[in-house]
């Protein structure tokens, strides 16, 4: 195949690597896009809320919609006590959404298609749940693993399954986002390479027939835009559900 669908995920240094002691400090294209996302979000929210007029401008309206959307999600899944985690969830949602959307632009780099990024985010959520739960409830936090009203003779099995599902949370949480972005981008690339393969293999007939995979790309791109938003939303909602366990343990 002429086009390697994995090539778009390659990380390369934008500047020469600086070595401080034994630590290598590198500024990669991944870091550049993360920085762009953070600067973009900050500018959007700062400029959007600068005027605070009663009749909002378009930008202020958009900023308010984003705020309201996440605020209702947090409130409905984690309760009013969960609102203290609102800044955390809002940051997660805006960062993942922006990074996903930037990644959809051709010739850019999709940061969330690397599992190290999503795993870092998921482990942050996992540790927050664990540490906050332990500080807040002490050993009562482990009631999370003991459902009420279960017959005593199957309780050990249930507890084992509950602990296993708790530990596997960061894995499924991170792989879901990473796999969706990776698979989506590879699918687009593979369909794009069909056009090239048909054109170079069959000549003029092939280029004309390339309309079919091209139409498929348009449809898939619409789906990918939906997925980019949905996965950011799902990540935020799951973070809320997990945080709800830390706030209200016990079934």
């Amino acid at each position, binding site marked *: 195949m002429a086009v*390697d*669908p*994995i090539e778009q995920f390659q990380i390369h240094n934008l500047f020469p690597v600086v070595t401080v002691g034994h630590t290598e400090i590198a500024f990669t294209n991944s870091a550049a896009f993360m920085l762009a996302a953070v600067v973009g979000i900050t500018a959007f929210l700062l400029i959007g809320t600068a005027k605070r007029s009663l009749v909002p401008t378009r930008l202020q309206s958009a900023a308010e919609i984003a705020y309201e959307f996440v605020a209702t999600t947090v409130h409905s899944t984690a309760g009013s006590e969960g609102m203290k985690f609102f800044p955390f969830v809002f940051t997660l949602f805006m960062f993942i959404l922006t990074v996903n959307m930037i990644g959809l632009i051709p010739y850019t780099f999709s940061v969330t298609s690397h599992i190290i990024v999503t795993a870092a985010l998921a482990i942050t959520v996992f540790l927050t749940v664990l540490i906050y739960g332990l500080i807040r409830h002490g050993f009562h936090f482990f009631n999370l693993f003991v459902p009420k009203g279960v017959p005593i003779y199957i309780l050990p099995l249930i507890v084992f399954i509950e602990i296993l599902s708790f530990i596997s949370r960061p894995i499924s949480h991170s*792989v*879901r986002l990473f*796999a*969706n972005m*990776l*698979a989506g981008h*590879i699918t687009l690339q593979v369909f794009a390479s069909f056009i090239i393969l048909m054109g170079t293999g069959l000549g003029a007939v092939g280029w004309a027939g390339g309309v079919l995979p091209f139409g498929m790309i348009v449809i898939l791109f619409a789906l990918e835009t939906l*997925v980019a938003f*949905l*996965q950011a*939303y*799902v990540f935020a*909602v799951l973070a809320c559900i997990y945080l709800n366990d830390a706030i209200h343990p016990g079934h």
Partner: protein
Amino acid sequence: MDPAATMAAAKYIGAGIACIGMGGAGVGVGIIFGNYLAAALRNPSAAQGQFGNLIFGFAITEALGIFSLLIALLLLFAL
């Protein structure tokens, strides 16, 4: 038989087998949308309130299919 060729053949066969898992996700997404539609036709006034849950369930289920596609893609391109 050439070991490298056997290896490549096994990779392609494995990728094909891994994609069977996507069928399960297809069934799941069908059940979700089918049940939503059935419930929405029974009580159309409540349908709008459950749209968020529909999309959430769709995303969770679809991700499971993506997992098996990921295994197939890893077999094809990364390993």
